[in-house]
């Protein structure tokens, strides 16, 4: 459908957008090697000293570890609760179905600061101490919808004939779920889980309002940015995080890509 000129224009557009997306990220990586602890252009000098500072910094390790724990907990909760509600909404027609899907979308549709102050007032009102649990509660709430969206989109595209065939062969509902439906929706669950983890890992605003004295990685970064004394250390930590997450992201893309191919086979109406 596209003419050659259009294809060239599209390629140019994609290149420009990629440039736009990556220049700031490249600057983050570049300034991880900054000699001075104040950020100014051009870079005054390079050193790898900040990477060793970050590696030895106990606060960074604690913050990173807390972020990972919170992310895992929120993702597991989101997977369990999100799949439960996906299956329920997919299989049954009932009055109020639309209301529930609206309810589920609210945590990401409403700005984060509102979720944050709402949870903050609620925990204060009910005298619940701020702790890792309150952070996880905040994160899980918007992670559920991410898993839900991915899973229900996939469930809608699964051919109904497969589960019917499974049941014709005598499998019970639970067995159909375990041996037929879940494997077919595995990729949706995985990409939903990865996206949920990413959202939780980088979450700032809701966490500011639901965390106590402990720091997740974004909170530690915010404190370091306020101080202005350790900016290259922040960049070093972020660089390492980007490198570490490259692997799961590539995996996810491969899986999603494979899913796309299977979708194109079965989903056309």
């Amino acid at each position, binding site marked *: 459908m596209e003419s050659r000129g259009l294809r060239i224009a599209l390629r140019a557009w994609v290149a420009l957008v990629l440039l736009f997306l990556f220049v700031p990220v490249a600057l983050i990586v570049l300034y991880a090697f900054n000699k001075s602890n104040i950020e100014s252009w051009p870079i005054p000098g390079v050193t790898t000293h900040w990477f060793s500072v970050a590696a030895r910094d106990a606060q960074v390790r604690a913050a990173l570890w807390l972020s990972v724990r919170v992310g895992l907990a929120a993702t597991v909760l989101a997977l369990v609760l999100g799949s439960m509600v996906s299956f329920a909404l997919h299989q049954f027609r009932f009055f109020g179905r639309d209301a529930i899907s609206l309810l589920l979308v609210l945590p990401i549709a409403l*700005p984060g600061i509102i979720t944050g*102050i709402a949870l903050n007032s609620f925990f204060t009102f009910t005298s619940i101490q701020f702790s890792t649990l309150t952070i996880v509660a905040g994160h899980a709430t918007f992670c559920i919808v991410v898993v839900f969206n991915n899973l229900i989109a996939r469930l809608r595209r699964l051919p109904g004939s497969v589960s019917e065939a499974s049941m014709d062969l005598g499998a019970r509902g639970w067995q159909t779920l375990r041996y037929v439906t879940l494997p077919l929706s595995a990729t949706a669950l995985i990409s939903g889980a990865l996206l949920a983890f990413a959202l939780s890992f980088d979450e700032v605003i809701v966490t500011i309002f639901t965390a106590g004295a402990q720091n997740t990685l974004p909170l530690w970064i915010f404190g370091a940015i306020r101080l202005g004394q350790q900016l290259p250390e922040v960049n070093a930590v972020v660089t390492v995080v980007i490198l570490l997450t490259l692997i799961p992201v590539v995996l996810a893309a491969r899986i999603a890509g494979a899913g796309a191919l299977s979708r194109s086979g079965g989903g056309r109406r």
Partner: protein
Amino acid sequence: MTYTAGTRQLTQVAAGAGQGRWLRLSTVLWRRPWARATLLLTPPLAWFLLVYVASLVVLLVTAFWSINPFTTNIDRTWSLANFQQIFTTPAYLSDIGQTVAMAAEVTVTDAIIAFPFAYFMARVAAPRTRTALFVAIMLPLWASYLAKVYSWVLIFTNNGFLDWVAGGLGLGHPQLIYTNWAVYAVFCYLWLPYMIIPVYGALERVPDSMIEASQDLGGRTWRTTRSVLLPLVLPGLVAGSIFTFSLTLGDYITPLLIGGTKANFIGNVIYTNIGIANNVPFAAAMALVPIVIMGLYLSGARALGAFEAL
């Protein structure tokens, strides 16, 4: 009950009496679908109602209270004073207007940037390129939001990266730091991946046969795009716009770091009132404004079918 069992699990079914309990439970659930539905729905709904909705309700109620101005403890006398103050102070009204306008501008801009990109990814790129592009847009999401915004400070600052590039190209000194243009650019940057992904999803689902049929009927590229592609992709665009609109509506960190003296957005007002002045009731009253705005936006989005495309 005999089955021509080819599968492992069916032999297990026929096997022990220990399976009888599960079989009975399974049968009960099969015969009473509402039991299954309730079982599936109760934990997530309980979570949502007891945690999220309850906290929104507390917020709603707090908006009608006020605080002791000296100790900032909450004083539970009911009044509409907070709302009165918001809607009669010109500064707050202009803050609200400014935020909504910015959110709309960012949404439109991101939609325009995302569409050709997503089109290339979905319809032109080879599968290998597609995977690479997918990784490329997911990767910035893993670089910390704060670090990215701070990078933009470096780009926009006096004699920063942008000034250097513009100077090299002979375009003079843009001097964009602490202006609303800078805030606009950073918002467009931050939320772009959230717009690309649903648009790509929607474009990917458009069957080739539709495009071919349109061309068979004589439509050229632009006509096909306008009359066939865009309506099919609209739910994806609207789904992405939910993200860009709401994320801009409530953000206060970017205006804090990048914005200048005029950058007072709804998020900033809420934040200064709760995080600093500790005037939770006023912050709650202010927070109801974006809730109402997003409520209206969501009903519009649902009518346009965006929920299918999320």
